[in-house]
């Protein structure tokens, strides 16, 4: 029986079962191969880019199922999922410790016992330990009484609040461990509660557990148990942006220790990680202390991989809900529009010999047909029709490398299709529904979401960075639209690269755009061919807002710092300059078609 509900609903991976995860998860580790390998890794990406799902998949219950293993021992590693919610560890009371009393030591203790509790909860919930043999259960009991007891004692917990269980059942022993560490966490919070309204230091008499003197040795001993995997333990810290600065520095200190042969730290962030300095102010760096992956950068530069991933994800979801499995048929193009574009393509192919710009007949067709079609809709004689953002390929491009930005609109489309349908099963999403939802999403992203971020000032010159960012986005989007409807040789442009060095103010605005997902950052060879320069790519989610063609390879233009300043202060004037052919320069001659080739896609189902 198929699951009810929307096949494109976005679920919290933490709450879904191992079999669901294994069903739905598309193996992306060839794109992010450092994640399942030994070593510390930072995984950056906006919410919904698939970080939590990757982490969930690494957990032992999923690994056992996916690799068809029966025992933990045969797994290459043991991964503990540790989600960090906003106010789990970042309690306001902790600010009372800063510059007063044991700020680092107490925060480290809090973090260490928090993680320890999750480790044992993972063994209880994700490791299928109920089926362990008596000998293995006994080894765990000995671990409790021996190494763990000693470590707790050394940390200052001379008498645990709960006495050791008498029976040797692993479930009882695990629960004892969980309770001990839950209690240790609670006692920290109780201490903090007493600090709430104090302005002077308060004596702390509880135990103190650090990484090197407690957590690491404990995990090493755990790893040595006969039922545990031979490989390292991975601590998967999800949303580490939710740590306060001190906790972030402490975590960096752990990364600095380079203990990944025993314990590897896999840390995910939403591009808002507070610092890469340690508690002793040293910097951790890639690649020697950790490897670093920015999901959106990977997919921004490797569109064919991303397309394949989304296709597979959608196929699995449709299959799970017993719906037609072909994504391109489920999300068909607007047939009338595609026919018109094919006609334009045919005319380009026909006249290539006389007036062609590209090396091959199809080059011009690919480059210009769709932009021409969009141009034809925006002239003074435009009719009531407008360009439809529909079809699986377009939707994939529009999601801009983040799976959530495909699934959420798809979920809305499905709901709208159900609402307007006759009650029967949904076999496809009409292109008009696709277009409406996508345009709505773009509008919301550019207008409504932005309004929430804006500062209260209104004057651009003195405005907060958000207002400047909004101006910049309008300037770039408008400029790219002007280029699209021009007769330039490269009309599909989504990026700018700097021909000089952007100053601090400009960089601030651009970085803000990256942080909130309006822009991606990359690098490209500079104009002179002597090195690399910064490149910023407009999110394709904004394509419908600015009437841009989101499909296929898109080019970039070189721009100066002063031009971008102009864009920030006077976006309309910037767009006018672009119309006049000023301010932007083409990159050096190269075969654009040697770069990312567009994914092959079938035509969608014909509409009635």
């Amino acid at each position, binding site marked *: 029986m198929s699951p009810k509900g929307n096949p494109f609903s976005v679920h919290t991976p933490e709450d879904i079962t191992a079999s669901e995860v294994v069903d739905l998860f598309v193996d992306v580790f060839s794109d992010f191969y450092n994640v399942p390998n030994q070593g510390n890794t930072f995984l950056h990406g906006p919410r919904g880019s698939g970080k939590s799902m990757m982490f969930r998949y690494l957990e032992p219950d999923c690994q056992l199922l996916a690799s068809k293993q029966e025992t933990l021992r045969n797994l290459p590693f043991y991964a503990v999922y540790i989600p960090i919610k906003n106010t789990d560890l970042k309690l306001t009371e902790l600010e009372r410790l800063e*510059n*007063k*009393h*044991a*700020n*680092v*030591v*107490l925060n480290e203790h809090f973090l260490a016992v928090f993680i320890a509790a999750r480790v044992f909860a993972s063994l209880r919930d994700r490791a299928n330990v109920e089926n362990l043999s008596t000998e293995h259960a006994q080894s765990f009991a000995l671990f409790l009484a021996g190494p763990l007891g000693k470590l707790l*004692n*050394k940390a*200052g917990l*001379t008498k645990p609040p709960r006495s050791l269980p008498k029976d040797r059942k692993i479930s009882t022993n695990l629960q004892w461990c969980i309770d001990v560490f839950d209690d240790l966490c609670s006692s920290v919070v109780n201490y903090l509660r007493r600090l709430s309204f104090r302005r*002077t*230091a308060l*004596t*702390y*008499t*509880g*135990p*103190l557990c650090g990484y*090197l*003197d407690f957590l*690491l040795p404990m995990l090493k001993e755990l790893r040595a148990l006969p039922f545990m995997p031979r490989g390292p333990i991975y601590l998967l810290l999800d949303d580490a942006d939710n740590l306060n600065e001190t906790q972030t520095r402490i975590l960096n*200190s752990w990364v600095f*220790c380079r*203990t990944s042969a025993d314990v590897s730290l896999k840390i995910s962030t939403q591009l808002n990680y507070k610092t890469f300095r340690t*508690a*002793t102010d040293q910097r951790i760096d890639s690649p*020697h202390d950790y490897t670093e992956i920015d999901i959106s950068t990977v997919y921004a530069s490797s569109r064919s991989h991303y397309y394949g991933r989304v296709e597979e994800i959608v196929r699995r979801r449709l299959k799970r809900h017993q719906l037609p499995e072909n994504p391109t048929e489920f999300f068909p193009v607007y047939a009338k529009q595609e026919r018109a574009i094919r006609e334009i393509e045919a005319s380009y192919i026909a006249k290539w010999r006389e007036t062609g710009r590209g090396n091959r007949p199809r080059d011009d067709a690919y480059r210009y047909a769709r932009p021409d079609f969009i141009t034809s809709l925006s002239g003074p004689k435009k009719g009531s029709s407008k360009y439809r953002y529909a079809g699986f390929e377009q939707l994939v491009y529009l999601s801009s490398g983040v799976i959530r930005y495909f699934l959420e609109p798809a979920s809305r489309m499905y709901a709208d299709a159900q609402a307007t349908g006759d009650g029967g099963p949904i076999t496809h999403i009409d292109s008009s529904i696709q277009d409406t939802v996508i345009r709505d999403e773009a509008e919301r992203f550019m207008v409504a979401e932005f309004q929430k971020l804006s500062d209260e000032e209104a004057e651009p010159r003195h405005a907060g960075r958000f207002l400047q960012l909004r101006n910049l986005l309008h300037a770039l989007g408008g400029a790219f639209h002007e280029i699209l409807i021009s007769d330039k040789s490269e009309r599909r442009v989504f990026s700018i690269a700097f021909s000089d060095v952007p100053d601090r103010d400009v960089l601030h605005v651009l970085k803000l755009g990256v942080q909130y997902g309006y822009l991606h950052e990359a690098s490209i060879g500079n104009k002179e061919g002597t090195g690399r320069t910064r490149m910023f790519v407009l999110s394709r989610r904004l394509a419908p807002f600015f009437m841009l063609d989101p499909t296929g390879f898109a080019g970039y233009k070189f721009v100066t710092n002063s031009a971008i300043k102009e864009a920030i202060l006077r976006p309309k004037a910037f767009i006018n300059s672009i119309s006049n052919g000023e301010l932007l320069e083409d990159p050096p001659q190269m075969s654009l078609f040697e770069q990312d080739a567009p994914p092959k896609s079938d035509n969608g189902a014909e509409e009635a």
Partner: protein
Amino acid sequence: MKLKGKELKGKTIDEWLKKRQPKDFGDLKTNYVTRYQSLEAFLKKDVHPLVSLGAAVKDGIFLNDHGPAHVATVIKRASELVSSDDCTLTSYEAYILLAAIQLHDIGNILGRSGHESRLRDLEGQLEGLLGDDSAEKRLIRTIAQVHGGSNNGDKDTIGHLVEDPVLNQIVRAKFLAGILRFADELADDSQRISAFAIQNDAIPEPSRLFHKYSASLQSVYIDSKGRAIDLHYEITGAGAQEEFSKQGSKLYLLDEILHRTLKMHYERTYCMRFLRPTIQIDCLNVKIKVFKANNSTGTLFSIGYRLEDKGYPTMPEKGIYDVCPELSTWRNGKPLNGTMLIEEIKERDG
């Protein structure tokens, strides 16, 4: 109230601390002078005398003195280091440093190897004597611990110390740890030995060399103004000819002196990272006087040398791989070099 190094004038830090009043500790309510005195008294009576015994029982080694006399020497050396013109310590820092000095070697009771990190294994009355606050106790223990040993294989134990205020007090943990470590290094002189045991050949073979070494180090003089430390050794003809065993090799007393002064030089270099600019020691001046016999009045000759940072650092034998060992096994156990890079690019490019 702050201790000004230049005003110590031959007194020790603990003599200074014992004259402090509770108001000298600012907002802190505890009487730290009383606490220190209780700690000192307990350790002097019940612990320090047993440290060497514990090591002997556990490891079969006859340690040179790790008892009250050694602690007093470390305090004296620390006081001499602190006596520089620019050095100051708060009353609280003085307490922390002295408490750490009192504790630093007591882990030897449980065996010599790794004794630095065994503090936490010692329970009982000690816990109560260090007060109630866990962070304060941890600070003292940590400073005591980093006088040697390693942290997960990394010998830079002081470098990883976190500077965290405790009970509203700023404590320069690395600075204090540097003082303790270097003072301990300089406290290996002739006062540590049991002269009687040496004279009567009562010291077992593995430990004899260390006792003879200590016996030969006659004085340690810290010249703050000159930014130097003078080490004076004395060897007799008979002493020079005596052979010792160490880690399977045979060597003489002078070899040990050369080795130990080099170690002291490295310790100096290391600790100065955390002591500069308030305490600045740039070199060790070593003088070894050779006598014909114990009862000779004149020297046969003297040997002198200076250990200081000089010249240009020498390129290590294995080049970058000595400095960054992880590069020697960059990919699949092979070292990073131009050829490996090309191979890796080819493989990644597909």
